[in-house]
């Protein structure tokens, strides 16, 4: 059995010093890995990135992250990414990583994803170039997610996103903004490639539990929603357990 701790939308700023770290320092008692589902900073500034790495530094389990839209606001997402990578956090954007945890291999395909909406109320590559570009970004992220999941030859496969792949986990959000919270193409990629669990954030007022049309469990781990420093999900209850120590092999697909 592997234990996955996950949270998104922690929105670390200069004013949140030490808010999460005390909870995370004992993570190895509860989980084998921590997955961060984007919006790790509030506006993606250098000072916020510095505050973030003080929260995440030297945790007792491996940490894998994707960025969210807030991490892009200061137009320097690479600054946030590099700050995290400098302290050993694995940051994924259209990439995968394979971890060995508790005697099992776990493949994680990570992507921020993007919006566009869901069946019956979604955008299309139609009309103005700006609209076509919007949907094209979502389609490209989804195609890469599918290819990355297919590439994983591991005991378990997990998709780590910021935007929602299904509208189940948006229940509670205003319908008018669903198109800015996620896209059906991401869910289609999950169902096409298959995986054991999909995690996302972004929808603060949504619902924790959902499922793709093909039956893949989806969990919205936005911290304002779960109101906890992390949620824990276990996979493979029938398989042997183990320690929280892990090592990883990083892969990047260029599809």
């Amino acid at each position, binding site marked *: 059995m592997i*234990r996955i*701790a996950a949270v998104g939308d*922690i*929105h670390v*700023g200069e*004013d*949140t010093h030490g*808010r999460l770290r005390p*909870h995370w320092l004992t993570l190895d008692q*509860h989980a084998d890995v921590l997955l961060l589902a984007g919006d790790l900073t*509030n*506006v993606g*500034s250098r000072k916020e990135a510095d505050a973030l790495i003080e929260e995440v530094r030297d945790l007792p389990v491996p940490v894998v992250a994707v960025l969210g839209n*807030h991490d892009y*606001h*200061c137009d320097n997402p690479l600054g946030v990414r590099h700050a995290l990578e400098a302290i050993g956090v694995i940051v994924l954007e259209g990439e995968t990583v394979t971890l060995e945890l508790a005697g099992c291999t776990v493949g994680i395909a990570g992507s921020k994803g993007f919006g566009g909406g869901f069946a019956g109320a979604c955008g299309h590559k139609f009309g103005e170039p700006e609209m076509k570009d919007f949907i094209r970004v979502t389609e490209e992220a989804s195609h890469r997610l599918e290819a990355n999941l297919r590439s994983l030859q591991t005991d378990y496969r997990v998709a780590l996103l910021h935007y929602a792949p299904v509208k189940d986990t948006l229940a509670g959000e205003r319908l008018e903004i669903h198109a800015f919270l996620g896209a059906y193409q991401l869910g289609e990629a999950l169902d096409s490639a298959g995986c*054991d*669990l999909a995690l996302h954030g972004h929808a*603060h*007022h949504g619902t924790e539990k959902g499922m793709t049309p093909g039956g893949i*469990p989806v*969990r919205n781990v936005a*911290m*304002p929603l779960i*109101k*906890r*420093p*992390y*949620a*824990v*999900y*276990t*996979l493979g*209850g029938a398989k042997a357990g183990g320690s929280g120590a892990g090592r990883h092999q990083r892969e990047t697909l260029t599809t």
Partner: protein
Amino acid sequence: MNQEYQYLVGKLQEALACDARVGALDIKITIAHGRVHLTGQVPTEERRANVGLVAHELMPQLDVRNDITVLELSESGKPEAVGD
């Protein structure tokens, strides 16, 4: 809501999203009878105060009622076995 107030809601939403002191996209704003009413949740007391400050700076002619709350975290809770 009168016409002027509708535009003010839009302008304040934009300010609360883009102002680095707040950076919040999900603050609920109601303007009526010369008063701005703010509700929602933010991570810290400082950010809660900044929401009110930004609203006051943008529309000093209106009273601001700041009913934003600060998110309190509970313990991590029981694990969920997924897919069993």
